């Protein structure tokens, strides 16, 4: 008997990105950031453009939000918030340095026709950086940037079950550095980033994990963007690439070294806009109008 055939992700064809015009490392809020390590602006623009082009070539559409001076990490749109259908839940950032981004994020989504639904004051959550949909649930990381209690709030705001996973490695400070859904059965997983309960929660959700070693996880290879059959990765250890190709995925390595200086890879630079979490949700189409 052949195993159950995997079904491609129902999301990941439309992304929001923000050009790196004002991107630089001016503060240190994760172990990767060092103010003395300067960003090369031209290289950053070049890498970002290549990422956008790769996503588009893979079949995704990319929408842009304008960069803002004084908000260097606005480029990491994954952290803007969570999208489900026509609802946008803006992040409540842990660090004051990033809290300046939220008004810009809210303005863009409001203008695009989304309902803005906010987390209660004091409940921190860093959007798609710390929460990814898989198997009908939203998997949400907590501890370094997001509060556990955000899970209950997100479930109520978005109408979907939420599974929480405790993150334990400061270097893998967001969930999207440890988990990358590939299709409805498979995901790149970095168990070294989770506590033993989180490992069990993911094991119960993901039938066929591609488990990374701790060393592989630190290449940011889980911080990849999946567009249908294409996996757009900031780096790809040989073993991981072989496994992905063995499963039938096309691996596209898209180096984003300038952004890794700030602790972000390909996934961090994108926010999927076509996610529908609740049963009644339908994603907004390209024109910004709700589907019927």
């Amino acid at each position, binding site marked *: 008997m052949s195993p159950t055939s995997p079904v491609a992700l129902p999301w990941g064809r439309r992304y929001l990105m923000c050009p790196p015009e004002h991107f630089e490392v001016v503060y240190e809020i994760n172990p990767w950031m060092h103010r003395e390590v300067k960003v090369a602006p031209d290289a950053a623009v070049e890498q970002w453009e290549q990422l956008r082009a790769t996503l588009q070539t893979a079949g995704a559409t990319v929408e842009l939000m304008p960069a803002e001076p004084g908000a260097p990490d606005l480029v990491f749109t994954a952290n803007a918030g969570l999208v489900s259908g026509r609802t946008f839940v803006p992040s409540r950032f842990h660090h004051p340095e990033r809290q300046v981004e939220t008004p810009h994020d809210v303005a863009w989504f409001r203008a695009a026709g989304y309902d803005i639904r906010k987390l209660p004051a004091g409940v921190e959550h860093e959007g798609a950086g710390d929460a990814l949909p898989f198997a009908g*649930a939203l998997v949400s990381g*907590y*501890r370094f940037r997001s*509060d556990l209690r955000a899970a*209950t709030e997100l*479930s109520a705001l978005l109408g979907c*079950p939420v599974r*929480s996973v405790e993150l334990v490695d400061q270097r893998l400070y967001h969930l999207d550095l440890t988990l990358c859904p590939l299709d409805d059965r498979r995901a790149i997983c970095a168990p070294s980033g989770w506590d033993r*309960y989180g490992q069990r*929660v993911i094991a119960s959700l993901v039938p066929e994990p591609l488990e990374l070693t701790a060393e592989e996880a630190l290449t940011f290879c889980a911080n990849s963007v999946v567009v249908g059959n294409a996996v757009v990765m900031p780096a790809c250890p040989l073993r991981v690439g072989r496994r992905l190709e063995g499963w039938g995925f096309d691996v596209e390595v898209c180096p984003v070294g300038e952004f890794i200086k700030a602790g972000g890879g390909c996934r961090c630079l994108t926010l999927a806009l076509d996610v529908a979490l609740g049963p009644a949700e339908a994603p907004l189409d390209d024109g910004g109008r709700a589907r019927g």
Partner: protein
Amino acid sequence: MASETVVLEGHIVDSLILAKVLDQILESGAEYEVVDFDMGRTNLDPSRAVIDVSAGDPDELDRLLADLHQHGVNRADVTDAQLEECRVDGVLPAGFYATTNLETDVHTGGRWQSVVNPEMDCAVVVGDEVRTVPMHRVRAGDRVVMGETGVRVHPLRPASGATVFEFMSSDVSSEKPKALMTRRVAERMRSGRERDARILAVCGPAVVHTGGSPHLARLVRAGWVDVLFAGNGFATHDIESNVLGTSLGVSVERGSQTEGGHSNHLRVINEVRRHGSIAAAVDIGYVGGGVMYECVRQRVPFVLGGSVRDDGPLPDVITDVVEAADRMRAELTGVGVALMLATTLHAVATGNLLPATVETFCVDINQAVVTKLADRGSHQARGIVTDVGPFLGDLADELGAR
């Protein structure tokens, strides 16, 4: 011991957060009791657990709760108990909280504090520690807990390894294998001894009438009794039987009435009064054996509480009943096992003073005594319906008392 009620809510089941929190409590050396759990109806509904967490001391508890906070554990919103000062010595403010004999905590100063000496029908006074205080002992200025807000009572839990409780949990009945029950009482006494609990014997005169006195004396001599409560009758007949060989005039050897025996107990009381105390009568050689003799010799403290029916009484009998109860209270520290031996009034009086955590065995030929004890609130009492004399013989043999 410090404890706190905490609430954990959200998607705590599928995400194994509840399992993690409970594991973490145990791994830290603390303990928990889930006092309420409301499971979400669907995978979208949050679940809610209310958990009592107990740790060795307040600092340990604070550290644990700080660690658990990141997993969504918050202190439950508990209101402090309302306190009111006594205005007059011996008079409680109206509306005072009336205690049970169960383990009780009072929320005061933002945390739960255990009542150090649970006792039924008292008030609770909050000072450096939280204590039960009987009405007549409160003093003007004492801060008394009012109403039930901020008070919680723990249901009775079986003592460690206390299979005897399961064994004897059916209604008290004479239809029980006596030898087995005697062995189980002996086991509980041994277990109490192992955990440094004191053993209390509460005795009625029937102990002497039924020939149990020499066996109880053996138990005292062998160190199986740490404190003894009785009345004038028990002590008198114990001494009478050793000095004159009769109990209430009846020969303890032959079981027959002796001539002039009806006054024997009066003559004995009179002689002990002449010596000034039971201890003095023992020291001078007037009393040469028996339970009271062994208590004096082994320095086992005893409290003899008086009543209006008493002849004499013996000089050691405390005729002020309030003072007698206070003396009994003072002797209860550390008591973990209580044997109520063929006595109704002293069993009920002692039961009123005992915390429910004290393993209590009530031995009486009349099963109504056990029922009465339970009816007065000593629900922990387990009954053995049997003749106390042979029971004490078997118990002393079982414990190897010579």
